[in-house]
């Protein structure tokens, strides 16, 4: 008997200045093997150093975060969970009073915290606990020492990196507003590795953009200002809500490819430069040493990746830009590029660069997708950790997707590293040939 299942093909038209193409996007609904947005805490707590993330949820939420991050041994972790118990559910205890108690206990323990995020979860949303109200109330109590904000990282609302989107969105209203911004200001939006922020700062100055800031900042007191003369570049493709909120605050989005690989990074800088009235010839001249160096680094992985086929399972929304990079700069064949969510406006330029023969899919029915994947016998599979080892044990080579969110991969000087991340599993398989990975011999002991 066939399972009820809403799979249908959806035609979307993407336009760009060169050509107009039509792509079939497979939209699937079924079991989704993805993280919820709470996982964003694992990297966000490292980026914003004076912030604390308090999840309001169940033991499951607490268990998720510690399973992801608990392999590191923390002297003082900057995240925790307020676990809802049956007293809260039965209405025996006023959930808001309980939350206030937990927050006061937490702030007593950690007086160094300047920004506290109350992070919503599935349970807190299903019982409709109003955390934004709670955040306002707690702000009144703790300002100016501690700012309290709220966002949702629940699985029912957010998938993996969308947790960062929700977090940054909650920060936008806190940015200082300036009415008459004299000079055009560039915001670079999305969490980047510190080293990449530093590289990008140097490059923006080189191409003549001096007035820029990164969002999120490294400390919460350092939020960049925003006004009608603010323009922003997205460094990550998963920031739909944050972009919308920035636009509401008067900032203007600069459409660009994402800064992955040589092509994406160049387009990203060029798009910003054009907005600031810098000529393409200047950009080209200034960036040439970087593009050359990056091409050279990327080419080192060419021998391993060229002509190889690749299949992406949905995970972080980075899939489409990364597939574009692998196709155009490393000559890989894209079998299917799955992504949890497509925000057309931001991904248009990327989509237009991907060949029409590639199956793009949005959403997931994991069993069907696994069948498609294994039937197409890809040389490399990009997937989550729940699937990676089981696929390896069947003889496939995988690249676990989460690493792409935890590694410095943006910009020219990381393009070679990015290529290497995909080449590494293939390289390893070659090196371990005598172990015969994927054979019965490796298959027995557990």
């Amino acid at each position, binding site marked *: *008997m066939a*399972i*009820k299942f809403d799979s249908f093909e959806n035609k979307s038209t993407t336009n760009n200045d060169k050509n107009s193409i039509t792509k079939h996007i497979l939209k699937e609904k*079924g*079991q*989704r*093997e*993805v*993280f*919820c*947005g*709470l996982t964003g805490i694992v990297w966000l707590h490292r980026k914003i150093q004076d912030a604390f993330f308090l999840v309001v949820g*169940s*033991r*499951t939420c*607490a*268990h*998720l975060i*510690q*399973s*992801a991050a*608990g*392999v590191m*041994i*923390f*002297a*003082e*972790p900057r995240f925790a*969970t*307020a*676990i809802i*118990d*049956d007293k809260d*559910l039965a209405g025996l*205890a006023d959930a808001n009073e*309980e*939350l206030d108690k*937990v927050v006061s*206990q*937490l702030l007593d*323990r950690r007086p160094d915290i300047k920004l506290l995020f109350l992070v919503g979860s*599935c*349970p807190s949303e*299903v*019982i409709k606990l109003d955390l934004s109200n709670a955040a306002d109330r707690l702000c009144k109590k703790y300002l100016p020492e501690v700012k309290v904000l709220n966002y949702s990282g*629940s*699985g*029912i*609302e957010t*998938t993996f990196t969308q947790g960062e989107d929700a977090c940054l969105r909650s920060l936008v209203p806190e940015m200082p507003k300036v009415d008459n911004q004299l000079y055009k200001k560039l915001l670079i939006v999305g969490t980047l590795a510190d080293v990449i922020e530093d590289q990008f700062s140097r490059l923006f100055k080189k191409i003549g953009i001096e007035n820029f800031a990164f969002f999120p900042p490294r400390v919460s007191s350092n939020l960049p200002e925003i006004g009608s003369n603010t323009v922003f570049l997205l460094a990550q493709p998963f920031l739909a809500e944050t972009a919308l909120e920035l636009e509401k605050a008067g900032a203007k989005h600069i459409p660009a490819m994402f800064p992955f690989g040589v092509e994406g990074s160049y387009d990203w800088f060029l798009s910003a430069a054009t907005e600031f009235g810098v000529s393409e010839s200047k950009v080209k001249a200034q960036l040439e040493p970087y593009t050359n160096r990056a091409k050279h680094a990327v080419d080192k992985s060419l021998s391993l990746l060229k002509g190889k086929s690749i299949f992406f399972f949905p995970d972080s929304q980075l899939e489409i830009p990364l597939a574009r990079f692998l196709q155009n700069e490393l000559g890989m064949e894209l079998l299917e590029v799955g992504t949890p969510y497509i925000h057309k406006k931001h991904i248009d330029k990327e989509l237009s660069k991907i060949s029409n023969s590639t199956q793009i899919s949005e959403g997931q029915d994991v*069993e069907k997708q696994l069948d498609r994947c294994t039937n197409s016998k890809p040389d490399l599979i990009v997937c*989550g*950790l*729940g*699937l990676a*080892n*089981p696929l390896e*044990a069947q003889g496939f080579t995988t690249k676990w997707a989460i690493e792409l969110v935890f590694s410095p991969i943006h910009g020219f000087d990381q393009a070679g590293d990015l290529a290497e991340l995909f080449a590494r599993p293939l390289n390893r398989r070659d090196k371990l040939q005598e172990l015969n990975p994927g054979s019965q011999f490796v*298959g027995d002991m*557990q």
Partner: protein
Amino acid sequence: MKLTVWTYEGPPHVGAMRIATAMKDVHYVLHAPQGDTYADLLFTMIERLKDRPPVTYTTFQARDLGGDTAELFKSAAKSAFERFKPNALLVGSSCTAELIQDDPGGLAEAIGLPVPVIPLELPAYQKKENWGASETFYQLVRTFASQVEEKPEKVTKPICNILGPTALGFRHRDDIEEITKLLNFLGIEVNVIAPLGASVLDLKKLNAAKFNVVLYPEIANSSALWLQKKFGQPFNKSLPYGAIGTNEFVTEVLKLAEISNSDVTAEKVSKLFNRSAWYSSSVDSNYLTNKRVFIFGDGTHVLAAKKVAIKEFGFSVVGIGTYSRELAREVRASAEESGLKALITDDYLDVEKAIEETQPELILGTQMERHIAKRLGIGCAVISAPMHVQDFPSRYSPQMGYEGANVLFDSWIHPLMMGLEEHLLNMFREDFEFKGDATPSHLSHESSSGKVEKDNAENTVLKTDGNEIVWEKEAEEELKKIPFFVRGKAKRNTESFANSQGFTRISLETLYDAKAYHAR
């Protein structure tokens, strides 16, 4: 609502997953929101299993909540059955699904599948992982063991079942290998090991054993009690943990197996397989005497570890506790025996406080105690779940049986300062390389940043019961000459001594008065 920095157990549905994943032909359909599939990683990454756990999630999203989530569950259950063709289907809810009250049991029954469907009632806001595992295993055993038609004849052969090992269990993989070897050596045959590696058919064969060996009471006690009632199978009370514990276990199982006229005795077997007893008796271990240890973990491992720490290693146990409320009574009784008050809590912050107060030289705990140990700069070994990937080692590393005792000796002693180094540090405090506050040099890669912070904090004025106690400079300098790992305790002892004497200042003499007063 409860502030939880780390949680000792996952939610109860993770316990159910541990049973389903341990077994061969059982599938679990879990009504759960998108994202709860993170639990797959526990098995594929932490335990490094090669197969996906046999779990189908409905992964509903916000937009489904307006619609028919019950229908979603039914279609997921139906397709899971068709794809995986299990011999039994477990169905249940995760914490969020429990709130929307779709009744997976009733829904699954309505589909009319040709295999037994076992509905799991796991209250996620009251119970936890081990309870979920125990309940799930009990339901499975009840369902299948009671399907036996004819009344079993009395078993005369020395044959037993091993009950309790699961997926994601602390060293379960090697414990069962070690105990099976031991039982076979004693002339006892193993009928079924469950749930790890068992199928539904195996559960139907449970009654063919003469008795049961329960290795993990947290998981298998309720099942063993039921089997005792149903088939009259007795089960062991002692656990094969440590050399002495294993001796007791050997004596007990020989009795359960009714092997009387045998030439094997615990003592003889022990001599063949155990080294830890000699290692601990050798002069090199002399300096281990009365090392102050704090023990925390699940009830079973804590009780067993306490015995080993005191009777086999000669440590002195200064604190003991468990997060397993089911074993609270036993742990309390055991603590009282040693003049201690057991810490029964699942609150990480309570454990941290108790460790800070007792200032042990070694912590035997879980992955979570490693965080505390890092902060306080104390040596630590993991003896119980929760654990992380490094505690699913490639090498053979049981905790139980005689080889398990050998493993315990090596892994508990490792974090301590070696004897010679400890002596030299006592004598010479100023060495530029082997500093008083340094980590043991055989652990050279580990930093001691936690310790530096703590030292800075030592120049403070202590407030006790309204009295301010000030350390005189000379006394404070002297305090620093005490080796790091006992300095915290010395400081506390001196302060409590000063306080009890009504002193407000601690001089050099007070320090030594206190030392004499608290002499071991």
